[in-house]
């Protein structure tokens, strides 16, 4: 492993993925068990509200991934250490996957609740569509720039733009749209019965562990890929 360049260095990934994967499995099984058998049914929406325990944790996990990617991007620009590039890229990769899942689950929820697959009145879905387009362009930017410090810094700056775009777009969609989405969290705190909140938190913790496990697995894959490419270049 001494051949690896500074791209692929970083803390060892031997123990993280299995531990996080086990935690994700346990927490998600318990969380959905609690959500379906223990938490009370929603008075308005009935059984269909159960998708809340899947949709909202996925959405928050996507935000967490985007935030994590931007943090690593900031570290890259701040310290100039090149290993942060792959970490930022992997985090955004995970964020896009969870963002797409948010769009799909949100669309299913909209179909069940309002009978349409897409509603421009639902702020979170519109916001995720904007973010999905934005972060898909991140991949276009990466793939059409030559590998090197320039690409790493451009990607990092773009990733930082993303976390600024999230609140700005949130505000924009909020002042633009009609208010249809049920506001579960208000300024006074969570407006949920205790059992629902507990089940939700377990599901959120499970989803975050799942994202963490996937992130570490993907990161080690990308590191191996980068060092393999380097070895090929050395041999060529």
């Amino acid at each position, binding site marked *: 492993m001494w051949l690896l360049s500074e791209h692929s260095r970083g803390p060892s990934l031997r123990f993280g993925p299995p531990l996080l994967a086990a935690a994700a499995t346990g927490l998600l099984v318990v969380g959905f068990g609690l959500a379906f058998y223990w938490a009370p049914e929603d008075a308005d929406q009935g059984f269909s509200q159960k998708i809340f325990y899947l949709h909202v944790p996925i959405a928050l996990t996507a935000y967490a991934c985007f935030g994590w990617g931007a943090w690593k991007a900031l570290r890259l620009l701040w310290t100039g250490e090149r290993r942060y590039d792959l970490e930022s890229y992997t985090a955004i990769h995970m964020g896009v996957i969870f963002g797409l899942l948010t769009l799909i689950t949100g669309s299913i929820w909209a179909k069940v609740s309002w009978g349409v697959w897409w509603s421009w009145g639902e702020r979170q879905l519109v916001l995720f569509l904007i973010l999905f387009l934005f972060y898909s362009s991140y991949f276009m930017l990466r793939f*059409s720039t030559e590998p090197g410090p320039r690409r790493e810094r*451009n990607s990092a700056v773009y990733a930082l733009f993303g976390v600024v775009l999230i609140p700005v777009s949130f505000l924009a969609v909020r*002042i633009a749209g009609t208010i249809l989405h049920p506001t579960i969290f208000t300024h006074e705190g969570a407006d949920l019965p205790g059992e629902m909140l507990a089940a939700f938190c377990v599901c959120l913790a499970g989803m975050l562990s799942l994202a963490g496990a996937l992130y570490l697995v993907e990161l080690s894959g990308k590191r191996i890929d980068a060092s393999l490419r380097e070895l090929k270049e050395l041999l060529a």
Partner: protein
Amino acid sequence: MSAYAADVAALARKDLLLEFRSRDTLPAMLLFVVSALTVFHFALPGGSSERAETGLLWIAIVFTALLGLARAFAAEREQGVLDGLVLAPSDRSAIWLGKTIGVTVFLVLAELVALPAFALFFHPLSWELVAAVALADLGIAAIGTLLAAMAAASRARELLLPLLFLPLVIPVVIGGVGASVAAEPGSFLAFLGLYDAVFAILCWASFEYVVTE
């Protein structure tokens, strides 16, 4: 005048002088925006509302800006000027600020034709619309200049810029259209001002990383 302001003024002057002599970009932007407005007339079925017309004006503005931005770093790239500018003993953010001023001037000139043409073809302008366009120009120029520099470093320049640009200007379009058609435009204009401030600071601070080799 401080050294920084002198650098910015010299860079902006260079862009304006270059355009004044070569007339590459601005005539194309003017022709494009008037053509787009003509196409919009035929794209809108008869009896469409004024609100729909206003929305299309914003599309015309965004795409006209995109046309200008795609050319923003063309001269620098073709002549290898950017390397010289980066090596020059001045703050790199001055390059961004000078270019942003140049882009803003082009946009304003294009709109000096586009807005009267819109008023002539469709319906009279409100002051809210003009204020929103002015505010949007600043944000579009600030963010577009940075993204154009980013796209100039990639292989697929002309292809990449719209992809990077459009998701980021969705808030501008929301704010601009809102300010033009809403009964109370104040909050939308304030939002546009906020957008300009936030992204201008971010672009100003991060431009250095985009151009340094």
